[in-house]
């Protein structure tokens, strides 16, 4: 590298850091920095009325999975916590599956529209994507509540005789999350299918493949990076969901997000809440790393 080039690189680095500094400071104060506090708090002792006492303790971490018996002090598995983790993970997986089952045909449909219509269909997916999550959750509640649109329609049609009790169950949370996170599945799937070379289908049919074989052997393997991306983009917010389970789960059917809130707002156990937050953060980061790898592979079809 010549001296002039070297100077140019150094100047570029200096200006780059200087120009980014205000944004970085703001993020350090109000987004990244506070996460450090959460990590520290997870190793402290809970205070009597919420908050913490500054004594080192691993209890926050231990109590994620175990409870101490009040009589003999032995550790036992915390069943209530395990139920909440299991509900969070299983509901998030089911949400991802439902979103894929509906999202893949939808993305395929949009990608195979004539070019002029495509932008319109895509816009129809994007509007809900940017619409307030709370409003969309209220909207789906309007449909599945006891006297909601669904029950009214089914009763009117004579299909059921008593209203279906969907609201405030795990099913309600599942329907709600699939509804609010569906656009996150459709958009990356569309991006992958849009790049798909339709001539490959011709080749498949020329070689006497059936529709099903073409779908399974040609389409799915090629758009797989889009499937991974969409699945992770749905799975991550589902796992950290707070608003949807609070509104549709009715307080009983908690997920990790609501469980974390409970530790802080009911003032019960801040270190446990902090440890749970760090756990959630680690899982989400791991999922994101998988996503980045899939996305990189997607941009390089021969990789």
């Amino acid at each position, binding site marked *: 590298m010549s001296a002039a080039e070297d100077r140019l*690189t150094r100047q*570029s*680095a200096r200006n*780059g*850091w*200087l*120009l*980014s500094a*205000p*944004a*970085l400071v*703001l*993020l350090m*104060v109000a*987004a*990244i920095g*506070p*996460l450090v506090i*959460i990590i520290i708090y997870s190793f402290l002792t809970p205070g009597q009325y919420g908050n913490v006492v500054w004594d080192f303790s691993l209890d926050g971490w231990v109590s994620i999975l175990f409870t101490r018996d009040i009589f003999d002090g032995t550790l036992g598995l915390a069943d209530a916590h395990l139920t909440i983790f299991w509900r969070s993970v299983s509901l998030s997986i089911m949400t991802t599956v439902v979103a894929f089952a*509906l999202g893949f*045909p*939808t993305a*395929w*449909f*949009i990608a195979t529209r004539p070019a002029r219509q495509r932008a319109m*269909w895509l816009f*129809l*997916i994007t*509007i*809900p994507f*940017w*619409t*307030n999550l709370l*409003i*969309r959750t*209220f*909207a*789906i509640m*309007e*449909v599945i*509540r006891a*006297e*909601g*649109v669904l029950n*009214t329609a089914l009763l009117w049609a004579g299909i059921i005789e008593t209203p279906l009790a969907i609201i405030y169950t795990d099913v309600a949370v599942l329907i709600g999350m699939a*509804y609010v996170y*569906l656009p996150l599945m459709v958009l990356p799937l569309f991006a992958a299918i849009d790049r798909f070379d339709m001539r490959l*289908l*011709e080749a498949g*049919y020329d070689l006497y493949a059936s*529709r099903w074989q073409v779908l399974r052997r040609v389409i799915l393997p090629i758009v797989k990076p889009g499937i991974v991306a969409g699945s992770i983009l749905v799975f991550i917010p589902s*796992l*950290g969901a*707070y608003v949807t389970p609070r509104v549709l789960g009715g307080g009983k059917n908690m997920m990790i*997000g609501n469980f*974390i*809130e409970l530790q802080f707002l009911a003032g019960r156990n801040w270190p446990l*809440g902090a440890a749970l*937050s760090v756990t959630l953060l680690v899982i989400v*980061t791991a999922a994101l790393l998988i996503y980045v790898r899939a996305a990189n592979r997607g941009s390089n079809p021969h990789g």
Partner: protein
Amino acid sequence: MAERRFEISRIPGFATVAVATFVMLYLPIAALVTYSFNAGNSVAVWEGFSLHWYQDAWNNQAVKDATARSLIIAVCAAVISTTVATLAAMGTTRRARFRGDTFIYVAINQPLMVPEIVTAVALMILFGMVKEATGYQGLGYLILAHSAFCIPFAYLPIRARLEGMDLSLETAAGDLYATPWQTFRHVTLPLLGPGILAGAMLAFVISLDDVIITEFVKSGGQDTLPTYMLGQLRRTMTPEVNAISTALLALTVVLLTIFFLLTRKRE
């Protein structure tokens, strides 16, 4: 009977599922909007058309205050986040790669990756300490928090716009003895304008929609529209919530339409 052409890209059933999905996507929103015009005070039984829930919401002091607060926070957050995001975009695009540029990129996008509930409790602890130490309880905390998580939303469209601009005009300005500031002011900024406006709008919408972080950071009596609506859940819901939702929805659609017109690629 005409022979049906074998369409290569058609997969049986997909169009049906897709159309059904679009219906499922919009039916709940349609129901929400419809009941905002209900004359009765139920969100389930239709009793005729009326605008009185909009009137009620408009005359409700709590809603008025929450609206004002939401708008103040969103405007401040949009201005602050767009300003710092524009600078950061200038610092990270169209230049030689440098040590740490990946770090800056990841840091800027960090709010997109961390679950909101985690940031929310972290900020609650931090700002709780500051509130205790300084006694200041104002909107500043919410503005600060919103400005931070809006940064990536402002940054991405600005960066995309910058990447599409080549450096020749700026080089020409430099050749004609414009100072770096003059070049920025008279060449780069006007070209970048639509990107900045698009970024500011996204930041505004994102701030306006936020529930979780606001819920945890706000001091007593600092409800924004979304946290006010969340609070209504504890009571019997009336179509007033539908009316507020519909108004917010309309605002979002208008802003998004403008956003798409701004960022549309020139044909």
